[in-house]
């Protein structure tokens, strides 16, 4: 079962410049594991050194922030679309 994943501009160099790719899995966690297996360059930018999703990486299943669903345990189906949407943050100190 393949689910569509939308890739933001800064990560497209790791998906052969594709705006959308497909990955397989029954949950968002499984989907992300398959995604980063197919496109290994994504891993360091999605996950921190502890293997947790970085705080400025937002994942939306269709239009819902997965933090308000079941996070990475959220079930997915082939008709769903997962969007990776950056927050952009910084500061002087």
């Amino acid at each position, binding site marked *: 079962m393949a689910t569509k994943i939308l890739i933001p501009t800064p990560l497209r160099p790791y998906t052969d410049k594709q705006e959308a790719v497909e990955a397989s899995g029954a949950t968002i966690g499984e989907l992300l594991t398959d995604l980063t297996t197919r496109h290994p360059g994504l891993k360091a930018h999605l996950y921190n050194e502890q293997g947790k999703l970085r705080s400025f990486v937002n994942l939306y299943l269709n239009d819902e922030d997965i933090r308000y669903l079941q996070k990475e345990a959220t079930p997915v189906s082939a008709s769903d679309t997962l969007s990776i949407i950056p*927050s*952009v943050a910084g500061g*002087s100190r």
Partner: protein
Amino acid sequence: MRRSDLGPGVAAAIRRHGEETFPHECCGALIGRDDRVTHAVALPNTTEEGPRRRFLVRPSDYQMAEKQASALGGELLGFYHSHPDHPARPSQFDLDHAWPNFHYVIVSVMAGVSKVMTVWFLKEDRSSFDEGELNGDENPDSHPAASVHG
């Protein structure tokens, strides 16, 4: 060395935004193609951690910036922000939150007046930033004019 070529009016728009929001940080999107920035789009700083030293572009504004880039026939190349009363060098916080492949333009705003402007690119291993070559900014603080003889 990677480079950012700022088109007409882009540097001036970034400087104006940084001065308008001083002593708070400003932020915005850089739109263009390849390494040429044709538009600087001001975005709201939605941080809840103190806008004098932080900025945040929320996901909905990020999406809007990508759509605007497409509408303008370009790509989202990166983001700019200001460092009020601080040098135009990326902080550890900037590094911790950076995205790869983006142009990060920083303008230092000292006592309400924009000064040095720089551009940075995240290293692939996320260990630090590389400074890039910034072109198209006429401000003398960023590009000291050669002395005139004769």
